[in-house]
């Protein structure tokens, strides 16, 4: 199981390092470690919990991007199962550290369950989307 609560500052530092790496004039010649983010698009305004999977190679750790959210991660091979509980809105859900950010296309994220803030499970996941970038 991966650490569920990495400080936001650390996550931002990872992002800064990644952006510095990208601003270099020379193209990187090898793997570039960094943080990828999972962004949610939701059709609803009252989501209270979301369960989703992230699949891809060599995920090192998961970072919390909204401190008020409760986040817990399970690992099965190259698949992370992540639950985030709180007042969920469209936007950044979590970040995860990888050994090579250039392989971003190797990663995918899929919504499994969503509950509203009255704890009821959504009957349909139409309109929900996760983006890895």
């Amino acid at each position, binding site marked *: *199981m991966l650490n569920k609560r990495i400080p936001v500052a650390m996550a931002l530092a990872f992002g800064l390092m990644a952006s510095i790496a990208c601003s270099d004039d020379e193209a990187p010649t090898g793997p570039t470690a960094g943080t990828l983010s999972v962004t949610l698009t939701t059709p609803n*305004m*009252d989501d*209270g*919990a*979301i*369960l989703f999977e992230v699949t891809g190679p060599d995920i090192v750790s998961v970072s919390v991007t909204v401190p008020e959210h*409760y986040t*817990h*991660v*399970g*690992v*099965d091979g190259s698949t992370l*199962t*992540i*639950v985030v*509980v*709180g*007042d969920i809105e469209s936007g950044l859900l979590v970040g995860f550290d990888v050994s090579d950010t250039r392989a971003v296309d190797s990663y995918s994220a899929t919504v499994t*369950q*969503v*509950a*509203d*803030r*009255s*704890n*009821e*499970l959504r009957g349909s996941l139409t309109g929900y989307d996760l983006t890895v970038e």
Partner: protein
Amino acid sequence: MSRRAALAIALMLAVGAVMGLAQALGPGDPTTVFASGFTNPCRMAFDASGDLFVADLGVGQIYRVTPDGTRSLFNDDIADPRGVTFDAFGNLLVTTRTDTAVYKISSDGQATKFFDVFGASGIAIGPDGSIWVAAVDSLHHFDAMGRYLETFDVGSGGAAAFGIQFSPAGELHMSSFASIHKLVDGAPVPIATGQPVQMRGFTFDVTGNFYWAYRSLDPDTVSRVKLYSRAGIVLQDSFVTQVQEPCAGRFARDATGATTDRMFIAQLDGEIREANPEGFPFAGWPVVGLELDQISEIDAADRIVGEPNDLDDNQAHFIDVIGNNDGSYDIGDFRAYLVETGVISPSTAAAR
């Protein structure tokens, strides 16, 4: 048995013989007074911090008694309290016959009407946190939130007049004047029958043996607490004899909530006595089958994300009941659990 206890028993026997009152002392003797001054303290429950709560029947008062025996009034809003137990959330549930209701008293002593049951008496919390209420010749079953589930006719098994308890095997047992039955597939099955009338409250130890209070109305027979096997066989006819008209026994909990080998015995003369703990071979069995605080947050979270976990089916069912109650454990239920345990704040947007 300690040397001191053995000496005390020997001394009592000697004194009793001299006075012509000799009686067989049991392993649970000698007893000592723990608290007194009640009218009828036969319904008792321990909270998770080790305090004893006593419903004084008839006078409408519920007392808290700390481990050192100090008592204070907890609530006097409920007329004719009949049965008490703590629910999975730490509320004291109280049955009453006067207005045919079950009340819920929060930790600060505030009582609210929970649900209606006619003629309610004994009350117990099951392994899944659900609530069982004995009433006249029926057992009524409610979920942990007080929603009605089902009713069983137990008339042929007695009226469950003196308490209902779950055994370590998770089977609901009920005591009437002369018998104990357990509920199997919705029907009462005899465990110990043909016992003297005036058998009253009972409680289990961790092995499933049970201690049953016998109030003798015969001047030639000693009131006592008898020990039975889980199959209903008398193991010790006089386990505790230094009691006067006992009506119930409860194993105490310590400050961590663990059930101990200290047994407190309520008497119809208004005293609560403590038996000799050194005479008990095993600790008591918890009378509350499930408590929210006992559920591990990590286990509840791991079950959601598919990690190995120790959340059992009763706990998962309970979390579903306090969540969306749809019959399966999902993230809506897990969210409800986090709110209920204070891990996250309830959303202002929540409809409930």
